[in-house]
């Protein structure tokens, strides 16, 4: 039998249920893997006892002959953007260092109710602002992947859910939560050769998730295959009266509905995603993906999303604007850091606390957001961006009259080296293929398609209609079955 840490969510769930191994053995194996992988810096806090307690509950339930919960015996990683009761929750920031919530986020609560255990809190870009995991106050996450050139260049695991992606790829956890505001589940999944889905906006409650840009923030699962994503998604989603934008809809049985038969489905290929400067290997993988979906029975159609090029600039107005408002709560009064020198007044305290507590990228975005919302600029920037957002959403609506799904690359490059992208704008451009679906609120997923010449994973993105996570997952499954992606990073950590 292979190592327990090589098993995914479904295999662990089934193995525990069938008595092939105990949940405690699984939790211990992953706890050991986590403890031995400090070099990746994927975890900010490790919680081995939480994982063991959930495992013991699963083993006890099985021994008693009780019906097992859907995730009984499955330990997972929790992105450190989700409030976890009594466990430090920082959003990878200094300003929240030491913050121990007195409540549990809805999504994590649902996962624990489903029987999952927590291996630890996963590192991320500070306040989920970044595409490389280089903005964390707690240091960079190092991707477990390396180029095949024999060098040891440390690579980005993607961002902002870079702790999640690195930990899953390195077999430190079978699955993890992520959050996606402009691509923060999909791009790190692509960089590390795993799968991840951002559901329709409103599927997962935002309650207890540290807010970045509320009209875009959406939680979702990351795992090593499509089935595992479906299992976790079922446990994470559902109506929550505590989130005013939560969708009051039943949760579909996505795992039971999985089918790689795409006959009768039309898949659109958006012309505007063919961009100058996209590496030939990514173009080739995209064509390969088209052929795989055809092979699965889908009909391929060319479609146009004419406002695609304006998605990124619109996003970089809307997201910072919402962030500048959301992050106003960090004032040194109610929780988190306080900086107050002798003789300083309240205003000084606010400014000193926020200067000391926020990293450069967070400050940059707060300043941009404050600027575009300030008197005299509001209409030219913010209102115009929201109008462009309407046009981008309309592009997708129009496309759905011609097709059921869209296929694109997930990112314009494979993983880059840490420290290679120093210009903030160049970093923003890495989200070019993921941001439009975020602005339109539609479900989108990345699945691994293959490796580039340097031996690094490349991902394909499937975008679906609102509420059609099933269609997205099914197309992901069709690609997964044909890609036969089995590459994994060789342990050096």
């Amino acid at each position, binding site marked *: 039998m292979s190592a327990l840490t090589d098993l995914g969510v479904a295999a662990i769930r089934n193995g525990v249920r069938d008595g092939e191994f105990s949940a405690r053995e699984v939790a211990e194996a992953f706890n050991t893997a986590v403890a031995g992988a400090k070099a990746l810096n994927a975890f900010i806090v490790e919680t081995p006892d939480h994982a063991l307690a959930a495992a013991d509950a699963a083993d006890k339930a099985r021994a008693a002959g009780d019906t097992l919960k859907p995730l009984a015996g499955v330990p997972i990683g929790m992105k450190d953007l989700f409030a976890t009761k009594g466990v430090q929750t920082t959003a990878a920031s200094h300003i929240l260092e030491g*913050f121990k919530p*007195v*409540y549990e986020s809805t999504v994590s609560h649902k996962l624990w109710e489903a029987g999952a255990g927590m291996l630890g809190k996963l590192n991320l870009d500070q306040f989920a602002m970044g595409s490389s995991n280089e903005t964390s106050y707690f240091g960079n996450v190092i991707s477990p992947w390396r180029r095949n050139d024999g060098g040891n260049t440390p690579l980005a695991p993607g961002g902002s859910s870079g702790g999640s992606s690195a930990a899953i790829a390195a077999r430190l956890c079978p699955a993890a939560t992520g959050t996606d505001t402009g691509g923060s589940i999909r791009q790190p999944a692509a960089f590390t050769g795993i799968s991840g889905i951002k559901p*329709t*906006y*409103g599927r997962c409650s935002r309650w207890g998730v540290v807010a970045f840009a509320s*009209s875009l923030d959406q939680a979702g699962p990351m795992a090593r295959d499509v089935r595992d994503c479906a299992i976790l998604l079922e446990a994470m989603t559902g109506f929550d*009266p505590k989130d*005013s*934008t939560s*969708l*009051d809809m039943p949760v579909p049985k996505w795992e039971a509905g999985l089918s790689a038969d795409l006959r009768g489905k039309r898949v659109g290929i958006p012309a505007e995603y063919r961009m100058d400067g996209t590496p030939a290997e990514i173009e080739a993988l995209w064509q390969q993906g088209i052929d795989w979906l055809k092979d699965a029975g889908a009909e391929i159609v060319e479609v146009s999303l004419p406002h695609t*090029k*304006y998605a990124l*600039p*619109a996003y*970089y*107005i809307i997201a910072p604007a919402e962030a500048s408002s959301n992050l106003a709560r960090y*004032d*040194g*009064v*109610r*929780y*988190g*850091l*306080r900086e*107050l020198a002798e003789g300083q*007044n*309240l205003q000084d*305290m*606010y*400014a000193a606390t*926020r*200067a000391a507590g926020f990293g450069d990228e967070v*400050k*940059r975005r*707060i*300043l*941009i957001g*404050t*600027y*575009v919302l*300030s008197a005299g600029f509001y209409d*030219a*920037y913010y*209102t*115009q961006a*929201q*109008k*462009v*957002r*309407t*046009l981008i*959403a309309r592009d997708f609506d129009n496309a759905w009259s011609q097709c059921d799904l869209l296929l694109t690359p997930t990112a314009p490059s494979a993983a880059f080296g840490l420290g290679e992208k120093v210009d*903030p*704008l160049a970093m*923003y451009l890495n989200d070019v293929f993921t941001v439009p679906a975020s602005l*339109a*609120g539609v479900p989108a997923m990345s699945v691994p398609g293959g490796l580039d010449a340097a031996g690094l994973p490349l991902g394909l993105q499937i975008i679906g209609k*609102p509420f059609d996570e099933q269609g997205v997952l099914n197309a992901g499954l069709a690609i997964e079955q044909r890609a036969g992606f089995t590459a994994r990073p060789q342990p050096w950590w």
Partner: protein
Amino acid sequence: MSVDTATVKKVASLARIAISDADAERMAPELNNILGWIEQLGEVNTHDVEPMTAVIPNTLRLRADVITEGQQRDAVLANAPQGDHGFFTVPKVVE
């Protein structure tokens, strides 16, 4: 539109973030670069286009006007950097 150092300091003050002269000087060209790139949105014809308000159509729910969670003073104050007598405390604001 060009953002100078004085504007960066003014925006930082609005955002209640203390900023040194050196940091303001460093950030001005970065912000100009980003804002310059954002300005391409101006070329989109948005005549008769409504700004987006809800990306997935949803209705704002109302709930009964009753206390749902209360009597949790200690929990609310548990993470306060400084509290006293069941209150958050801040530097004196009234002379």
